């Protein structure tokens, strides 16, 4: 029964990891940018949520209505300025620039918010409650909600990419940005929209992390970026639904590792990550799920 429990918990945690990962995957799939500041931007989103909740007293669960658009705008602006100018100098430059952005964000947060941890909505029933299956399995409502949010976010992204005008342009630019230019599309603008979408999902991931665990300025690179990266690689680079699959595999591996020995939780996840990287470097879903 303990193993069944581990698998159930792992699968549900996969939803949270997919929220971390899908933005990273989208930015890599469309503009070939590995955004090393991805996790830190999620932490920024979490701090924005904390600030907004404290200042305006909006209900915790509805804070995303403000944070998601704010992060989307930030994504567009970041892409059109910092990241695009790095891209113009070569894809490798984006690694250096996003690493620099990551360091600036992390140290900026340390400076202004100290290293103290903060949670989002720690008193909420949703954050604390769970239900039981049988006598031994306790499932946190929060993880169920995250899983549902992840599926909804992926469905929304997929619908946007396959049905909307800009979604079509995003896929076209990802295929061949020069040919898209010849069709009249300004790929920089299209990149900006893709980055806005990516950071909208980052906002969800950051808020979710703040409710699930505690936010601190280093959580971005220590946890969120690493787990997002593992989920993306396991699931397949540039694949959207692959991030959910990758998140689930990572989550299950961690829970099974913890079942064997509580200190092996993270190790087990990263061993699976390495095994996939060696045996199936294209990820579990080789198909690009952009359409």
């Amino acid at each position: 029964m303990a193993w069944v429990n581990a698998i159930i918990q792992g699968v549900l945690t996969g939803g949270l990891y997919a929220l971390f990962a899908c933005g990273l995957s989208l930015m890599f799939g469309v503009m070939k940018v590995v955004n090393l500041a991805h996790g830190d931007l999620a932490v920024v989103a979490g701090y924005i949520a904390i600030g907004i909740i404290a200042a305006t007293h909006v209900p915790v669960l509805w804070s995303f209505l403000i944070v998601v658009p704010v992060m989307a705008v930030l994504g567009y602006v970041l892409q059109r300025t910092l990241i695009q100018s790095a891209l113009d100098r070569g894809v490798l430059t984006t690694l250096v620039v996003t690493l620099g952005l990551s360091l600036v964000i992390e140290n900026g947060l340390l400076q202004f918010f100290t290293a103290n941890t903060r949670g989002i909505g720690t008193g909420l029933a949703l954050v604390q409650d769970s239900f039981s299956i049988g006598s031994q399995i306790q499932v946190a409502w929060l993880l169920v909600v995250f899983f549902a949010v992840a599926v909804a976010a992926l469905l929304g992204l997929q619908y946007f990419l396959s049905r909307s005008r800009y979604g079509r342009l995003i896929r076209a630019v990802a295929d061949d940005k020069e040919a898209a230019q010849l069709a009249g599309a300004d790929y920089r603008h299209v990149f900006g929209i893709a980055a806005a979408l990516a950071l909208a999902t980052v906002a969800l991931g950051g808020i979710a992390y703040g409710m699930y665990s505690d936010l601190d300025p280093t959580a971005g690179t220590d946890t969120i970026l690493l787990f997002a990266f593992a989920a993306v690689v396991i699931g397949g680079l540039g694949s959207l639904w692959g991030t959910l699959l990758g998140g689930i595999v990572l989550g299950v591996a961690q829970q099974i590792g913890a079942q064997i020995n509580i200190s092996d939780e993270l190790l087990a996840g990263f061993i699976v990550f390495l095994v996939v990287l060696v045996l199936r470097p294209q990820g579990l879903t080789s198909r690009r799920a952009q359409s």
Partner: protein
Amino acid sequence: MTGLAGGAGPAGGKGPIGDGPAGGVRPDSGVPLLEVRDLVVHHGQLQALDAISLRVFPGEVYAIIGANGAGKSTLLRTIAGLHQPTEGSVLLDGNDVTQLRPERRARHGIVMVPEGRRLFGSLSVEENLQVGATYARPGGTWTIDAVYDVFDWMRARRHQRTGQLSGGEQQAVAVGRALVANPRVLLLDELSLGLAPVVVQRIYGMLPQILATGLTVLLVEQDVSQALRVASQIQCLLEGRTTLEGRPADVTAEQVEAAYFGLASTASAGRPGEGSDSLWPG
């Protein structure tokens, strides 16, 4: 930019300048629709084009011919805005567009079908056309349905990925994707590349139908006989320089051969009295 907009109408509205490939007097007075002035282009240290000029008048089919590496594709890509010239300028309807990005030029009516087709591989046939139509110049005659009418097989297979199409079918989609943008000048870069001769014939066979909507075409072609068949004006490039320019009817096969392979001195010396030396610049 609207002075010649009427020219985009159906064939009947073209006026006296729409001679097409059949011949007639070249309308070399007035403002050319597309003009290239003394274009110099470098690829790094390497000079790809050396002072190339050309004037394309409305309704013309202007063909650039030349061997591999002559600079044909570079010329077309520079006109489309994908390369920045070191010197010289590109004018559309008398307006300098040299500083415009490719996407701006496309919206003003300079639309290129790139070499190697360059379709969006993860998109369906129809989605490829929809991308082409996203920033279409208003007021033109081309729609996705009009493209389906020209290439009738396309309608039934519009939901297929372009990877499942044959080379010739992909080329047709690439042409369709450019047409739905309602170009004023259609740039065709090596339509015949990698295609069977019979397929090339079929694609070029569509050209009159396309021209009938008032389009002007500037094409690059390695297949010289194909280019001579469809063009109303040709220019031959060799190592980035113009070696021959004229109407297909006015040039002999020997002249073309000489210009193509760079046998200029022997060819012109062997035929001093033919009276067509004026075709040779310099």
